[in-house]
Structures are given as structure tokens and as C-alpha cells.
């Protein structure tokens, strides 16, 4: 997959920065010691990486640190970067690996029962969620985005997935990566991506239904 394809299915919320130079050219300039090119790469990807890291680790402070650590690693290893995968994929692989290691090491996210989660939803939230799930019309993301309660519920539901499931769902539904690119980033087979994503969404559906009751 070419690097130009990294914006193919990005979510509409992902920030669009017009940078005329391609990643490969910027990387080459970075290798020659051009600090401006490095800065442009950081500006181009910092928000997207931060957003994915935050969705996985669920802690803004940790997410900021992990994002910074990701780019520091990128800086340190840029000379070794051979370009077999795109810079975008490589940077996300570093970020996701750092975040997953961080989550596993610190056990930051305690496993909470669905009952406890349910207890966190107030009646108005439950009603909004119940209406959303019971609505037979096709879901419209733009419409959903109008209702702040829903994506707050979604954020809480996402935390109920384990890290690997959270990573694959985030990369697909939030960052908008293709299955093939997710497989590259997570260094797993594409079939594994398919099954892991399926289980994650099924579990998320169960969580949401439980929360709506």
C-alpha cells in the first residue's frame, strides 16, 4: 500500500493539513538534518497519533507523553528507517506499540463490570442510548455527532474493551485505516484483524446494550 493511501478512509474528524511535500521527501530531508522537515512531519501527524493513543490509553497526560515519546523514537531511528513501509504506518506502529506496552505494564485500566458501568450512566444517557440503539433507521455519523451524550457513552464503552481490541477498533473506526494497514501497524495477519475487529464490535454492541438497560 502506498503512503499516499494513508488518507483513504480517514474519519471526517481527522485534521486535514495541507503539506505539499510527501512523507518520503520530508523523511529524506530529515535524514539530511533538516529540522524544519521534521517539524512538518510532527505537525502533520501529532494530532492523529495523539488521538489514537488517547483512545487506547484513555489518559490525556499519558497520551501526550506517549505521543512525544513516539516522535522522539522516530527522530532517533529515522536514519535506520528504510521506507519499506510508509512513514505514516511506521510512526503509528511505534505509537501503538508504545501505548499497548504502557497499558500492559501499568495496568492503567482496571476491568470494570458492566454493572458498574451501567451505574455510571444516568437516566437521560440511558434513554438517549436506548433510542439510538432501537432506532431502525440507518445510523448517520454526522447526526450522532450532534448528540454529545452519545460519544461520551461511546468513550466509556470503548474502555471496556481490552487493549488489543481497543487498538484495532480505534485504528479502523476512528483513524479510518484499511484492514491491510492495521495488519501492518499491529504486525498481525489480516485475518486476525478481521476476527479481532469483529469480536471487538460485538463486545461493544453488548456493552452498549447493557448500558442502555
Amino acid at each position, binding site marked *: 500500500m502506498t503512503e499516499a493511501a494513508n488518507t483513504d478512509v480517514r474519519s471526517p474528524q481527522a485534521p486535514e493539513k495541507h503539506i505539499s511535500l510527501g512523507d518520503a521527501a520530508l523523511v529524506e530531508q530529515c535524514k539530511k538534518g533538516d*529540522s524544519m522537515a521534521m517539524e512538518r512531519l510532527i505537525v502533520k501527524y501529532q494530532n492523529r497519533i495523539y488521538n489514537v493513543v488517547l483512545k487506547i490509553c484513555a489518559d490525556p497526560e499519558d497520551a501526550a507523553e506517549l505521543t512525544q515519546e513516539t516522535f522522539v523514537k522516530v*527522530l532517533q531511528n529515522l536514519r535506520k528507517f528504510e521506507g519499506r513501509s510508509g512513514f505514516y504506518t511506521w510512526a503509528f506502529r511505534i505509537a501503538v506499540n508504545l501505548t499497548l506496552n504502557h497499558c500492559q505494564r501499568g495496568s492503567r485500566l482496571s476491568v470494570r463490570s458492566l454493572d458498574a458501568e451501567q451505574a455510571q450512566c444516568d437516566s437521560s444517557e440511558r434513554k438517549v442510548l436506548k433510542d*439510538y440503539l432501537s432506532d431502525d433507521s440507518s445510523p448517520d455519523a454526522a447526526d450522532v455527532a450532534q448528540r454529545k451524550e452519545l460519544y461520551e457513552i*461511546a468513550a466509556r464503552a470503548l474502555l471496556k474493551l481490552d487493549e488489543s481490541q481497543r487498538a484495532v477498533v480505534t485504528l479502523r473506526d476512528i483513524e479510518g485505516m484499511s484492514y491491510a494497514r492495521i495488519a501492518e501497524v499491529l504486525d498481525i495477519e489480516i485475518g486476525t484483524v478481521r476476527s479481532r475487529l469483529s469480536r471487538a464490535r460485538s463486545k461493544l*454492541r453488548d456493552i*452498549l446494550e447493557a448500558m442502555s438497560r
Partner: protein
Amino acid sequence: MKKDPNMNACSGEERMDELLNGYIDDELGARQHTEVERLIANDAQIRQRLRHLQKCKALLGSMPCDDAPPRVLQGLQASIASTARLHDQSSYNQRAGRIHLLARKALSAAAMLALAALLGAVIYTILAPETVTDAPRDFVKIDKPANPVLPVLAFSGKLELKTGYPAEVGAIIGATIEENGISDSGEGIRESNKRIHYLRCDREDLNSVLASLDAVWTRLDSAQMVLNTEVFGDEVAVDAVTTEQIAEIIDRDNNEERVELAKDFHLLNTIKQNMPGNTTLAAIQGEPANAIIPKPIITGGQNTATKPAKPDAERTIRLTIILSR
């Protein structure tokens, strides 16, 4: 790539979810896509399930994108600046190191060249033939002095003797030349009442010749010595010259002194010649007792053994004796 350990435990429901998720994400092949569409159209439960999955996807996709806090970029900018400084410092150090190394190489090369030149000069001084060093001098004669100074004791001249007894005088001169092994390239050339000897000899041989001439000096009618015959335009003649004067002139250290002395003798002899009652012969015979030229010891006519020829280097006197009537 890592295998999912739970992959084999995939149930039919999970397989259906995978297909539905692939359908939602547009990750199915054309055949699977058609099959799923057929299932959706024919099965309300599957349709319901699809809708739930779509709602999950839409819910997650609706989540706002959180921007990285400014401190992330600031921290990274600081890190980049630090790296750039290190890179610059490293580049500077590398450049300085290269310059230093280059300077050391240049100095080493210069020192090697200087040593090689010195060694070459020493070897050349030791091994080079002298003629090589002397050769250029022959070509550098632009500033040749008007009156060249001949080497010490080198002498060129001509002695013109006139006598009424040429046979007797000539025989004595010839015998002296032969006895002393003096180089005579003329070997007494006879030219219309003249006998010429081109002598090349050292001071000792000349003494022998002068001593022999002294013995027959009274037989001479006139004696004229001409100096610098080999230097064009610088000839100096001494009339009524005596053997003593000839010896004194030749004994001078350099040619300039010889010329000066010859001029003095010429003046003195001219005055003596012009004095009343004096003749050239009288002037010549006037001071026989003062002659310091040693006479050779005559060992007898039987002794015809000649001296061995001397090398040319020792023969610094070139004297032409012209004996005429």
C-alpha cells in the same frame, strides 16, 4: 505475523459477524459482498445484527478528534533543536578534525620533501663529479674583466733573441730543453733565419733554460720579452731584458704585477739604453753579479738521459723563444 489464538474457535455467529463487519467496512470481495447482500435481504435477524454493528461503528466514528496539547510540539521542538545542535557540533567537530588531519598531512609531506631534498643534496655533494659543478662556469663569462687575471705563476710570453751566433746559442738552448725534458711543441722550428721553441714548463725548468741562456747572454745582440702573448691586445714588451728580469717577472704572484714590473723594467732599460756610452749589451751585462738564477750543473756530454715528462698541470709557464740573427 502473529496468529490469533482464538481464531480457530470461530463459531458460525462470529463468522457471520466477520462477514457483516467486512461488508460495513467495504473489505469483502465481490462474491462475498453479493452473498452478504443476499443474506441481508432474506434474513431479518441478520439485518438487525448488521444495523447494530453499523450503529457501533457510527458511534465510535462520531467521537471527536482530540488534538495534541501544545506542549507536545514544544517539547519535540526543543528536542529537535537539541539534536540539531548536537548534529551541528558533530559536523563542526568532524570538519575541524578533517582540517586538522589535512594540515598534519600537509606538514608531514612538507617535512618529508625537505628531508628528501636535504638527503639528495648530501648525496649529490658526495657523488656528483666535479666537472658537473664546474661546467656552468664556462657559460657564465658575461662579466669577464677587461684585464683577466691569470692564475698564480701561470705565465705566457715570448722571448725574442737576436744574436750573431745563432748556431751556438741555439745549440745550448736545444740541449737545455732536451736535458730537462721540457715540452717543446716547436722543437726548434727553423723559419728563414729563425729558430722557434714553444716551451711549456714549470718554474724549475725555466730556471734551467734561463741559466743556459745566461751563459750565452753576452753573445746576444738584443733581447726582448713580450708578456701576455696569449691575451689579445694586452701585450707588454720589455726591451733589453735580462735573465734576472725575466725570472723576477715570472716570479710575481699574478699577471697584473708581472705587467707592472715589465713596464718598469722596460722604462728602466730604455733609460739605460739612451744613456750616453751605453749599449743594449752593456745594459744587459751591467749587473751580472746580481743574477740569482742558479746555473745548472753540467754533468758531461755522455749523460743523455732525459727527465721524465711532467704532467701538463704542473707546466704553468708558456714561453716562446724566437732566436734570430
